[in-house]
C-alpha cells in the first residue's frame, strides 16, 4: 500500500501499469466536485475554482515540458497565442465558443511543433531563453499589428453568441480534468520513461533506442496545446485582450511556481502547487491588498521561502513522510 501511494506521488514511479486506487478515487471525486461547483458553488468558490483550474492546466503543461528537460521561460507564448486565436476567430470568423477552443488548441499545438523543430539542438538554459524570446517576440508582433489584433489598445470579444458564464466555467473545469487525465496517461505510458530518460541524459537515451526529437515534438505539442487552450478559455471569461495580458510574464511565472512548490516532475505536484499558489496569492491580496506594493511583496517572500525550504515541493515532504514510515514499519517487521 505504502509503496503504491509512494509511486503515485514520487517522480520515480515504478508500477507503471497499475494506477493506485486511492489516486483514481481522489481524481474522480475532485473531478465530480469541479464539475458541480460551477452549478452549485458560491461566486467566490466558482471564481477560485476557475482560476485554480486555469493554473492547474498551465502548471501541468509546463511540468510536462520540464519533465523532458525542456525548461520553458515563455509559456505565455502559448497562452497568448491561444487567447488571440480564440478572440480573432470569434470576432473575424464568428466561430462559436467550442470551435474557437478547438482552434486555440490546434494553434498551441502547431506553435509547440514549430518550437520543437526549431530548437531541436537546444537544451537547458538555451532552450529556456529561446522560449522567453518567443514570447516577447509574439508580444511585439501583437503590438505592432493593431489592424489585426487591436494592438495595445486591446480588443473586446465581439462574438454574436457569448456563452453563459457557467458554460465557460464548466469548460475550464472539463479542460482541467482532461488535462490531468492526459498527464496521468502520459505518465503511465512509455512516454514517461522516454521523457525522464531524455531529461537525465539524451545521449544515453539514444543508445537504448529513444529518438529524442520524436518525444520532444510529442510533448511540446501536447503541452503547447494545453496552455493555448487555457488562453482560449480565459478570453471568453475575461472578454478583453491586449498584448500585455496575452504575453504576460506573470502567466509563465505562475505556471512555474505551482509545479515547483507542489513537486516538480510529478502528477499531483502541479495540482497541489496550483491550489497553494492561488491560496497564497488571494490570501496576501486580501490581507495586504490595501497597502500599495504589499501584496506582491509578501507573495515574493513566500516564493523565496518555498524555493529555499521546499526544494522538492509539497510532494517531497509527503514522499519523505511515507518513506520514513515505510522504513519504520520495515524495521518493526525485521524485529519481529
Amino acid at each position, binding site marked *: 500500500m505504502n509503496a503504491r501511494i509512494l509511486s503515485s506521488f514520487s*517522480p*520515480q514511479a*515504478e508500477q*507503471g*501499469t497499475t494506477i493506485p486506487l486511492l489516486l483514481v478515487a481522489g481524481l474522480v471525486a475532485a473531478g465530480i466536485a469541479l464539475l458541480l461547483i460551477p452549478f452549485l458553488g458560491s461566486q467566490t468558490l466558482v471564481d477560485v475554482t476557475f482560476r485554480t483550474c486555469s493554473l492547474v492546466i498551465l502548471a501541468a503543461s509546463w511540468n510536462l515540458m520540464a519533465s523532458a528537460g525542456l525548461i520553458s521561460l515563455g509559456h505565455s507564448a502559448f497562452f497568448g497565442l491561444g487567447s488571440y486565436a480564440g478572440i480573432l476567430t470569434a470576432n473575424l470568423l464568428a466561430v462559436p465558443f467550442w470551435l474557437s477552443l478547438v482552434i486555440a488548441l490546434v494553434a498551441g499545438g502547431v506553435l509547440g511543433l514549430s518550437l520543437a523543430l526549431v530548437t531541436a539542438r537546444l537544451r537547458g538554459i538555451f532552450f529556456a531563453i529561446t522560449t522567453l524570446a518567443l514570447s516577447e517576440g509574439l508580444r511585439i508582433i501583437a503590438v505592432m499589428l493593431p489592424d489585426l489584433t487591436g494592438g495595445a489598445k486591446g480588443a473586446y470579444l465581439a462574438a454574436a453568441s457569448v456563452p453563459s458564464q457557467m458554460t465557460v466555467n464548466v469548460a475550464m473545469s472539463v479542460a482541467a480534468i482532461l488535462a490531468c487525465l492526459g498527464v496521468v496517461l502520459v505518465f*503511465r*505510458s*512509455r512516454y514517461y*520513461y*522516454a521523457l*525522464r*530518460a531524455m*531529461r*537525465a*541524459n539524451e*545521449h*544515453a*537515451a*539514444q*543508445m*537504448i*533506442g*529513444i*529518438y*529524442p526529437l520524436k518525444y520532444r515534438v510529442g510533448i511540446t505539442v501536447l503541452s503547447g496545446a494545453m496552455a493555448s487552450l487555457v488562453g482560449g478559455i480565459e478570453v471568453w471569461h475575461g472578454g478583453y485582450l491586449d498584448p500585455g495580458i496575452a504575453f504576460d510574464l506573470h502567466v509563465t511565472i505562475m505556471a512555474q511556481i505551482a509545479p515547483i512548490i507542489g513537486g516538480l*516532475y510529478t502528477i499531483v505536484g502541479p495540482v497541489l502547487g496550483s491550489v497553494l499558489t492561488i491560496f497564497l496569492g488571494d490570501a496576501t491580496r486580501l490581507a495586504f491588498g490595501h497597502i500599495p506594493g504589499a501584496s506582491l511583496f509578501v507573495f515574493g517572500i513566500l516564493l523565496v521561502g518555498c524555493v529555499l525550504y521546499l526544494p522538492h515541493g509539497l510532494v517531497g515532504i509527503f514522499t519523505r513522510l511515507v518513506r520514513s514510515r515505510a522504513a519504520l514499519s520495515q524495521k518493526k517487521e525485521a524485529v519481529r
Partner: protein
Amino acid sequence: MLKLTNVSKSFGGLKAISDLTFEVRPNQFFGIIGANGAGKTTLLNLITGYTPPSEGRIEFEGMPIHGLPPYRVAHCGIGRTFQITQPFAEMSVLDNVMTGALFSRNGARRSLRQARAMCDEPLRLVGLADQAHQLAGVLTLGARKKLELARVLVTEPRLLLLDEVMGGLTPHEIDDLVETLRRVHAAGTTIVMIEHVLHAIMNLSDHVFVLNFGRELYRGTPDDVVNHPEVIAAYLGKPLTEQ
C-alpha cells in the same frame, strides 16, 4: 556481422582513428585493447553513431550504418555501454532497465507490463536485483557499470559493445561478470569488449585487436597478442609473464 572499411576519424589536427579495417564475425567474442588515448572509445562512438567517421564505411549485417543517428543504430540491434557511465540518475534502477526494454527494437510493441517483466532477468544476471528500487544516481561506480550492462542486455542486442565494464569492480565481481558475459555470449550474442582488466579479456576473447595511436598494431588470438613484442612495447610494457 560488423565490418569496418578504411575508417578514419580526426578531431581538428588529431587523428584519433586512422584507416582501420576489420570485421567481427557472428558470435565472435572480440577483444580490443590499447593504451590510454589509443582511440578505443572513439571507435565505439563511430560505430554507434555518436560521432560520424571522417572517412570509411561501417556495415552491420551488410547494411551501411555510418551516418545513422544513435537511436537508429540501436534499433538495428547494436547495444553499447559507456566507459563513463550514463545512468538516468533520477530514475530507479528498475526504471532504467525498463526504459531499455521499452524502446529497443521490439519495444514499440511491448506494454509497460511486458517491459517490466523483462527486467528481472538482466537485473539478476548482473547482480542488481537487490538494488532495483534504488535511485540510479546514488549507485557506486561498480553498480553503475552493472546497470549499464543490464540496461543494454534488456534490449536484446545481437551485437553488444562493452567499454570497460569491469573497471571499478572487485576481483570477485569481475569473476562473476566474466561468467555472465560468457553465458550471454553462449546464448548467441556477438560481443565486442574493450577492457584493461587483462586476465578477463584474455580469458573471454577468441580474437584480440590491439589499437595504438588510432592504428591497428596487431591482431590475433589472446596468446599471440600477449607475446607479441610490439604489443609488449606499446601496451604491456613488459611481457605478461614478467609482470
